[in-house]
């Protein structure tokens, strides 16, 4: 004890920092991580709220919204009845906010920022000032996105995919969206450079690549994807801004006639160019949504089965392979655009190949359960639910991935079901698991298990109630992005009742978040105080520093690493865990 206090004094250079420097414009990765986390959670909740509003229109098309209609202007909801333009805005903004302002900032900005340095034994991120900049640029991007709701014509309403020419001729909100994206892309670039350099350069002594916790691997591959896939979208965004503001026609051929008027543009552009650039980003982006989640799941499963991950190496190689392959499958979103048989065959083959590493990762995680001594605490419940939920989402990717079976399914609710199974009960559950798991690390207090379990079981039931029916609706041929949920389709009449079921489930899912929100805030003050290593874990963030970590350099003394990340239940050891820094 004495030695630590002495050490603490040595490392802690005593200069008082102002409140602003410490909590607002902080360069400490832990503070920045928390800033990212809170902002992203608020955006996530906001994106969900947009969807809860939309789901009213889908369940009861054309009926006025009860209770909250007075919140909206007459231009979006006259008499409480949602207009189609507003529906489209809500949809586009839901997608954008969930992906770019919610999940990625939470998974990479918050979890990555907070945990990567302390998992690899680094005093901070490699470029602390850049780190601060990346948060604030993200923040500005978020504000710009929200400003969209208040410009004439409302927020962007051409889908999160923003396909031109529709987006070229859309209202001002689209311009605001593009500027917002430029900020978000810049922020991601700064963040990803930082994470990659940190992981490659600042690993503690003895921490070789094959001793990294899988979470760190997930972040590393993710950051490479962000680094290399985002710039083409930035290019696309610049071209679309030029089209909208400087009158160019990169994405518009000549001779377009909109509402009876011939468009006065020079023409010569190609609408498909945008789609190629967009999906070149957006396909790697979906692995950005899932790899950090897999990282979180791997940590929690190893810890709560009390045994090493099964097939650690193959999981790592699969993640790397996934990263590479994700750059050559993008056009599987474009089968129906008429690209021709050869190109389609190429992309469907790469798509089938990319499903293999996902299968290996998932199977390895499942096999890891075998022979364990499984603890069913809240983080583990969420982590366990992730496996079959991701399974459903991933498996339904296969019929979409084959071009012939994609014909009836493309742009129907089947696609919506496919990816929501991956991002909602998949990624969002993983993020919940991560919050429950690392909360004691960040605050020094544990969250309430009882409230956590209520949160888990109700979320699991209702989230399936939302997304499973989507497969049925999709198979029946109901297009997505329909303001009336398919009510005008003759072939959809038999399954329309499902719309109401899905909407009610969505609202109940909203209610099911209340225990979480209460738990999240109450536990900061009332939660049980914990010891440094709350879960008896092996990785450095738990084993080598108190909870919460030492404010300035994370560690009282930079740890040395002697073994792999998941040495649980090592034969011949008295405890069932052997920390990485134990000689």
């Amino acid at each position, binding site marked *: 004890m004495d030695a630590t206090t002495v050490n603490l004094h040595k490392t802690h250079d005593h200069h008082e920092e102002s409140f602003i420097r410490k909590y607002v414009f902080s360069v400490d990765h832990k503070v920045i991580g928390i800033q990212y986390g809170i902002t992203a959670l608020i955006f996530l909740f906001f994106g969900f709220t947009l969807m809860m509003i939309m789901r009213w229109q889908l369940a009861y098309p054309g009926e006025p919204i009860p209770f909250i209609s007075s919140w909206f202007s007459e231009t979006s909801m006259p008499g409480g009845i949602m207009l*189609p333009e507003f529906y*489209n805005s809500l949809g586009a903004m839901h997608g954008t906010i969930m992906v770019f302002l919610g999940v990625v900032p939470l998974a990479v900005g918050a979890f990555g920022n907070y945990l990567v340095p302390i998992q690899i034994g680094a005093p901070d991120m490699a470029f602390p000032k850049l780190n601060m900049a990346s948060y604030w640029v993200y923040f500005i991007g978020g504000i710009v996105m929200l400003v969209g709701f208040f410009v004439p014509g409302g927020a962007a309403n051409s889908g999160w995919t923003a*396909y031109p020419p*529709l987006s070229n*001729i859309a209202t001002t909100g689209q311009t605001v969206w593009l500027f917002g994206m430029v900020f978000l892309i810049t922020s991601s670039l700064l963040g990803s450079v930082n994470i990659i350099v940190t992981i490659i350069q600042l690993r503690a002594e003895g921490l070789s690549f094959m001793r990294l916790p899988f979470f760190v691997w997930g972040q590393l591959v993710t950051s490479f994807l962000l680094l290399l896939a985002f710039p083409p979208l930035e290019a696309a965004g610049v071209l679309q801004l030029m089209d909208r503001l400087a009158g160019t026609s990169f994405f*518009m*051929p000549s001779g*377009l*006639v*909109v*509402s*009876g008027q011939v468009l006065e543009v020079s023409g010569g552009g190609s609408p498909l160019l945008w789609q190629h650039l967009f999906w070149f980003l957006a396909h790697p982006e979906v692995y950005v949504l899932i790899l950090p989640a897999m990282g979180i799941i791997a940590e929690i499963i190893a810890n709560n089965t*009390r*045994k090493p991950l*099964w*097939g650690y190496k193959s999981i790592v190689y699969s993640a790397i392979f996934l990263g590479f392959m994700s750059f050559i499958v993008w056009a599987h979103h474009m089968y129906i*655009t008429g690209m*021709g048989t050869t190109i*389609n*065959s190429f992309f*469907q*083959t790469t798509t*089938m190949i990319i499903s293999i590493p996902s*299968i290996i990762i998932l*199977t*390895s995680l*499942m*096999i*890891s359960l*075998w*022979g*364990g*001594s*499984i603890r069913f605490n809240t983080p583990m419940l969420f982590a366990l639910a992730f*496996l*079959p939920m991701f*399974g459903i989402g991933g*498996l339904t990717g296969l*019929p979409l991935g*084959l*071009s*012939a*079976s994609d*014909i*009836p399914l*493309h*742009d*129907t609710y089947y696609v919506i079901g496919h990816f929501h199974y991956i991002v909602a009960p998949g990624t969002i559950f993983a993020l919940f698991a991560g919050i429950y798991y690392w909360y004691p690390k960040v605050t020094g207090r544990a969250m309430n298990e009882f409230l956590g379990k209520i949160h888990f079981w109700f979320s699991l039931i209702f989230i399936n109630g939302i997304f499973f029916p989507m497969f049925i609706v999709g*198979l*029946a041929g109901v*297009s*997505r*992005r329909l*303001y*009336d949920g398919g009510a*005008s*389709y003759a*072939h959809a009449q038999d*399954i329309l009742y499902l719309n109401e079921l899905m909407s009610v489930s969505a609202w109940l899912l909203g209610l099911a978040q209340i225990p979480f929100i209460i738990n999240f805030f109450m536990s900061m003050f009332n939660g049980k105080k914990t010891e440094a290593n709350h879960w008896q874990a092996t990785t450095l963030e738990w084993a080598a520093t108190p909870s919460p970590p030492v404010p300035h350099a994370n560690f009282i003394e930079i740890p040395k690493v002697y073994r792999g990340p998941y040495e649980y239940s090592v034969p011949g050891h008295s405890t*069932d865990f052997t920390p990485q820094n134990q000689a």
Partner: protein
Amino acid sequence: MLEKYLPVNISTHGGEIDTLLINLHYLMLVLFVGGIIFYLIALVKFRQKEGCKANYTGIKNTKIAVALALVVAVVELVFDVMYSVPIWANVTATFPEPKDALEVRIIAQQFAWNIHYAGPDGKFGKTDPKLIDETDNPLGLDREDANAKDDVTTVNQLHVPINKPVLVYLSTKDVIHSFSLPVMRVKQDAIPGMIIPVTFQATKTGEYQIACAQLCGLGHYRMVGFFTTHTQEDFDNWMSGQVEAAKASDSEW
């Protein structure tokens, strides 16, 4: 079991697609059920018990996992190479001779499907964007052109005979739309600046719908057209009625 949820199929090629879709779902079911059984057994059998320690190595036989991944990979590639690619080539890239088929131009716009038949002469009249008039002449058809005299145009009314290939030339006036005939298992985006051929052949008569599958603006949801399949005889009757009507309105011109 999946058939129940799909719309009826009244096309010659739809069966192939449905079979592929159904078989894929069987594969998915097998993988999922197999996985879930393993998972549940593991959860029950290896829950934390007093005095029991976890097994450091877990399953020792790595061959099982490798074999599983390989089998799935092979099955997927079989679906890809043996089924999906040939079906795709057959459905979207094998076109009938124009003379054997009914040729139709379909021009999408916000938010309607303009249908253009060549009429008895089998030749489409010239069109020109400058002549477009949203109420009277949404296609900008040049009525002066000799080939246009007997042309039939409708809005949202696609009529085709059964048992005869239909060859659609799909285009759009403004933004991207997607021409979807759920009952025919046909879907093709209409891309500005391009004319994309689409072909299908109906097997049953009836009244169905054209849906738009791509977000195209605020009226996307109501961009629903009617798709009617006739016997050849009924179709010919319908067509000659339309030609008469077109000529009549033409002389008023």
